[in-house]
Each structure stands twice: as structure tokens, then as C-alpha cells.
């Protein structure tokens, strides 16, 4: 018999939410962290946004569960954890295919799965993509720090004491009183499931320092080469390996340090580009371009050894892509709430 711990949420909320022990961590996998949409409005104080790297997979997972798109989840990096369920719940696994299993039987990705108390949920090594998202009914309950539950290692904040999961951790999730029977077993329609491929074509917007780079040995090299993801990549940034991108000889090799959004591609003097991600705020090197928001999921799903090639587009084009994607997400929210999705299992 497992004794369940129920506690009042430590987060501030008008509604008194109650959370319950949902998973016991048997093994943590390579790196598994609690993340939500991110920690906003603190960058001026030097606190990066953190949060899920693949915002699309995360949103879709929560939408399938019929809950807030901001509910905290587990971000699983490449090799997944083994968890024991301490309470009945519903889950969705999105993103990289880490071949999840429930009590030893393979379970589908992008699908609402029923988990019973005592079940063992195990993940394997990813065979497509780099990061999986385990979304849980109600969302994971850890204390909010500066308005977010996201783990940020450097300040040791968010998640579980600002660190990745370790064996023996207990994961709480909020109890949901509503009956959402309808969502059980629903699967994401194929048109919404992203394809992770290498080399990935990554669309970018030039700037803000593209004028620092040599036309031929800088800008042209950047566009015409394939860049490979280095093993020295993490939640702060993805280091790329490829033909060096040259800065004009009369331009300085660095700039006054400044903040820039995730997806910014900075080029140090050595010419090997770095794409800045969620756990960083910026840097002191010239930025040749920025990855468009809609292509960031493709970037963070590449594993070391995979490659990408950049394709410039205009700002209006990027905004149109963003609008289309939001429309697509709204359409999904509608389909899910209408209850018209196929029930593939249960």
C-alpha cells in the first residue's frame, strides 16, 4: 500500500489548488528537469527565461490534456527516466521519440495515456529528436520562483531545488476535479506531428550585426554551408561546427555585451557560430542572424552530429508564419474541446 502525500500548493493562486504525489523517480535518465513556458520579465535583472526548449511539443501536450498551455512538465533530454506512478493520472509524451513503455509495453507518443497507481513508466534512448516532454494532467507542482516553475541551474532556482531529477525524488501534480473522460486515448492528428530531420532547413532573419561580416567569406559561407551540432551544446546554447564565418577585417571582434532573444546566432572570433538558447541572456559577439520562433523546435530537436542549413527570410514572412502557426494551434484547441478527435486506445 502506498501512502499518498497530499499537500497544498505552495504557489500563489486565487483558487486553492491541491496537489498530490504522482511519480516516484526510480532513475532520472540523462537530464530530466521541470520546465514551464518560462520566466519572463526578469531579464533586466539578469535572469534568463529558461523554460521548455521545444515550445511546440510542450503546448500540444498540454492542449491534448485539455489544460492550460502553461502547465509545468518534465523535459527529458535524449535518454529518459524510469518513474513509478503513485496516483492514477493521464499523461501525454511529445517531442523526441524516446520509445516510452508502460509496464514494459510500448505506448504511443502524442497520445493521452491512462496511468494507474503502481504502473512503471520507462523511457529509452531517443531514436528521433533530442528532447521529450512528459505532460501530466493538472501540471507539475513545484514552487514558483519569479513567476515560473522552470529549472535554472546557475541560480539553483525553479524545479526541484534548481536541479535535474535524481532517484528518489517525488513529483507532485495538481489534482483536477473536472471530469475529462473525453480526452482519454485521444491522439494528435498526423498533420500536427512535426518531422525531425537532419539536415534541417532553419529559417533566419538577418541581423542585428550582419553588416559586421564579410560578404563572401561571412554571409555567403553562412548560407551555403551545413553546420553540425557539437557535443558542447546544452540549455544555454548550441555550438555549431562548420566552415568559419569571417568578420570584416576592419570590424571589431566583439561588441559591448548585450541581451538578445533565444535563437540569436553569435559568431566569436574563431568563426564557429553559437545559437543562444533559453538558459542564456546574451553575449558579447556579433550576431549574424536570428532563428525564427517557429523553427526553434527544429533546432533544439537536433542531436550532436546532426546538421542544419540556414535560409534567410524577411520579417513580414516570419510574422506570417507565426500567425499561421497560432491559427493552427487554435484549430487544435477547438478540435480537442469539441471532442471530435479519434480515440485510438482505451
Amino acid at each position: 500500500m502506498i501512502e499518498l502525500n497530499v499537500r497544498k500548493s505552495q504557489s500563489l493562486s486565487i483558487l486553492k489548488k491541491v496537489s498530490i504525489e504522482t511519480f516516484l523517480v526510480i532513475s532520472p535518465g540523462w537530464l530530466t528537469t521541470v520546465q514551464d513556458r518560462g520566466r519572463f520579465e526578469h531579464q533586466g535583472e539578469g535572469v534568463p527565461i529558461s523554460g521548455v526548449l521545444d515550445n511546440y511539443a510542450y503546448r500540444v501536450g498540454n492542449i491534448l490534456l485539455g489544460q492550460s498551455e502553461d502547465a509545468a512538465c518534465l523535459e527529458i533530454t535524449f535518454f529518459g527516466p524510469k518513474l513509478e506512478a503513485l496516483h492514477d493520472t493521464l499523461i501525454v509524451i511529445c517531442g523526441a521519440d524516446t520509445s516510452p513503455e508502460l509496464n514494459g509495453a510500448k505506448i504511443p507518443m502524442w497520445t493521452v495515456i491512462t496511468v494507474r497507481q503502481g504502473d512503471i513508466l520507462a523511457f529509452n534512448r531517443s531514436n528521433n529528436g533530442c528532447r521529450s516532454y512528459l505532460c501530466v494532467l493538472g501540471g507539475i507542482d513545484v514552487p514558483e520562483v519569479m513567476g515560473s516553475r522552470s529549472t535554472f541551474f546557475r541560480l539553483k532556482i525553479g524545479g526541484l531545488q534548481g536541479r535535474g531529477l535524481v532517484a528518489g525524488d517525488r513529483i507532485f501534480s495538481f489534482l483536477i476535479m473536472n471530469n475529462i473522460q473525453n480526452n482519454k486515448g485521444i491522439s494528435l492528428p498526423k498533420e500536427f506531428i512535426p518531422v525531425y530531420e537532419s539536415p534541417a532547413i532553419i529559417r533566419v532573419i538577418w541581423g542585428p550585426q550582419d553588416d559586421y561580416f564579410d560578404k563572401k567569406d561571412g554571409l555567403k559561407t553562412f548560407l551555403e554551408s551545413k553546420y553540425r551540432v557539437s557535443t558542447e551544446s546544452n540549455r544555454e546554447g548550441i555550438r555549431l561546427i562548420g566552415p568559419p564565418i569571417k568578420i570584416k577585417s576592419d570590424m571589431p571582434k566583439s561588441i559591448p555585451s548585450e541581451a538578445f532573444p533565444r535563437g540569436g546566432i553569435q559568431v566569436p572570433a574563431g568563426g564557429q557560430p553559437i545559437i543562444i538558447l533559453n538558459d542564456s541572456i546574451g553575449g558579447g559577439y556579433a550576431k549574424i542572424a536570428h532563428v525564427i520562433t517557429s523553427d526553434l523546435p527544429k533546432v533544439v530537436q537536433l542531436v550532436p552530429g546532426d546538421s542544419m542549413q540556414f535560409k534567410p527570410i524577411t520579417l513580414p514572412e516570419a510574422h506570417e508564419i507565426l500567425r499561421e502557426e497560432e491559427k493552427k494551434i487554435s484549430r487544435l484547441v477547438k478540435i480537442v474541446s469539441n471532442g471530435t478527435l479519434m480515440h485510438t486506445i482505451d
Partner: protein
Amino acid sequence: MYRQFKMLLCGDQAISLEFGEGISLETGLRVQRMLHAIKELKKPGIKELVPCYRSLLIYYDPLLVDLKLLEEEFRRVENNLSENNVIQAKRVKIPVLYGGEFGPDIGYVADYNGLSIDDVIDLHLKPVYISFNGFDPGTPLLLGLPKELHTPRLETPRLSVPKSSVAIGGVQTCVYAYERPGGWRIIGRTPLRMFDLERKPQRLVDFGDQVRFVRIDEKEYFEIFDRVEREKEPVSKYIEKS
């Protein structure tokens, strides 16, 4: 400093207003004035403002904001900025124990600039510095270091600089809020914590604040250290509203 800001694209959800080529007090003040003036607009669709040395990063919602109109509005704001556009800054006094075990590089700074150690301390105490936040919360990078103290960074950064170290890097001085790797020359240490999540205010120094250093001896260092660490003496006594 540029006569007018340059608006630069940072991807599809942010722009950077750039006010000058390099780091200067004049440019830094322009950044802060614009920061406060744009905050005052309370414009829907502006999501987050991040001030830097010579630029202001602005996150916007492209579904709510027309960038052309936004730029025009920012131009108007810049044209109407007045020099007396007061910044809500505080004055902070930071006690420092210079040299010795806590300031291992003070001798290098003295030798490099042909000064005595006492000269280095006197010169460091002289200015009222203006704070810029670095990329760690609570670590103020301070502008206003006298020319005589400008000293290049270490060729190979230390793997760890102790928390609360006071250091010189090029034309700036700073106080490290955290233990972290760093290449600045360490000249002293303050008994105060620059950042503490459990405290109010969490940050001792904010962007735009004026900072003065005060020299203390070893006995005073440990007295203050004891009071703030053990007895949780409020740091507000080191802060003055301006």
C-alpha cells in the same frame, strides 16, 4: 553616442534600440531614460524591456504590434526626452576591505599603473559610479573607474572568483554577486551580499543606481559580516533614496 537610435531586428519578436557604438556614461544614461519613458507608455504588445550598456532590447508581440508605428512612437519618445527626465535611482554605499587575502590582485593593479597600493584604494574610493546590471542578477558592472586604474583582464580567467569580490576589468569595476569563473583583477571584498533571494530588496544595486565604496578594516569587515549574515541586519542602511 548616435544622434538618434538605430532600430535593429533581433529575430521576429524583438528589436534592439542601439544608442551608441561603445560603452559610455552618456550612452548608458540615454538607455535608462528611454527604458523609463517606454515603460511609462504602458503599451499593450510590449512584453519585456532589457537594458544593456548601449542598447535596449524590446520584446514585442507581433500579433498585436505594428513595428513601423512602434518605431515612430519610439522616435517621438526619444525626441521628447529631457535631460531632467529623472531616473528613479538609489544611492548605495558598499563597504570594502581592500587588499590582503581578499584582494590578491591589488599589487598587480598598482604595479601595472605605477601606483602605490594606497593610491589604488584612494582612486577607487573617489568616484560615484553608475551601475549597469551584468548577466548575473545583482552583479553591478560599474562605470566611472578613474583612468589611472584601467587594467586589462587576466589572460586566463580564474575558474572561481569568490562571492562579493570587488574587481577591476578594463575600464570597469564590479562586485561579483556569485562565486563564478571570472577574469577580472580582484582588489577587495565587501561583507555584504549583492543578491539574496530571501531578502528585501533582493538586489542591493539596480540598473542606474549610484554606487560609492567605503574603505573598512578587517575588524569592521567581520563585524558587518556577522551582523548581516547571522543577525540578518537589513541592508537598507546602506541604501539611500535619491
